[in-house]
C-alpha cells in the first residue's frame, strides 16, 4: 500500500503509518483487522485490500468530509 506514503510526501496534511498487524495485536483488535492490507483513515473511513489510486483518494476525501 504505497499510495499512503506517497500521499504523505505530497501533502503536509497527510501522515501515514504502516503497522505490522501481528506485532501489534492490541491495535489490530482495536481497529478490527480481519484481513490485510486494511486501511483506516482518520479512524472513520476504512477498507480492506488494495484499491486503485482514485478510490484511495476518494476514501481520504470522505474521511476529511466526515471529520
Amino acid at each position, binding site marked *: 500500500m504505497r499510495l499512503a506514503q506517497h500521499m504523505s*510526501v505530497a501533502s503536509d496534511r497527510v501522515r501515514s503509518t504502516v503497522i*505490522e*498487524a501481528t506485532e501489534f495485536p492490541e491495535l489490530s483488535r482495536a481497529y478490527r483487522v480481519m484481513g490485510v492490507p486494511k486501511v*483506516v483513515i482518520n479512524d472513520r473511513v476504512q477498507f480492506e485490500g488494495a484499491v486503485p489510486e*482514485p478510490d484511495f483518494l476518494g476514501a481520504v476525501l470522505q474521511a476529511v468530509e466526515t471529520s
Partner: protein
Amino acid sequence: MPILSARDQAAVRKEFERIGGPVKLVVFSQSLEAAELCQQNEQLVREVAELSDQITVEVLNLAIDHERAEAYGVDQVPAIVVEGSRDYGIRFYGVPLGYEFSNLIDSIIVASTGEPALSEDTLASLRALAADVDIKVFSTPT
C-alpha cells in the same frame, strides 16, 4: 547473521540508484518492550543504510527520548520514521519484512526525492486538503 541476503542487497542497491537526496531513518526502540523485535528492527535499518551513502540512522529510546517521540507522534516500538529533506509523516510500526520491506525501500526513495508518484488529479486534491489526514495501513510480512 545478516537479515538481508546478498541477493536482497543487490536488489536494494539497484533501487537506491533512484535516491535523490539525503534520508534519515529514525528508529525508536525500547529494551523493556519487544526487545527482540526492536533489535531486529535496528539491525534491518542499519543493513539498509549501509546500501546507500545518502542514508543516515538515528536510534532513539521511546522511554528516554520521549520528547522526540512525542514530536514525531510515535508511541509504539519498534518504529521507524522515514525523513527526507523534512519530516513527511511516514512511519512504520513493527519490523518491515517481506512485503513491507519493499514498501520501506519505496518510502526511502520517495522521501529522498520529495516527488510522489501520483496523478495530477490526486496531487491537486491533496494540495487542497483543509484538514489533517491520518492513514493507518495494517499489513503483515507475507
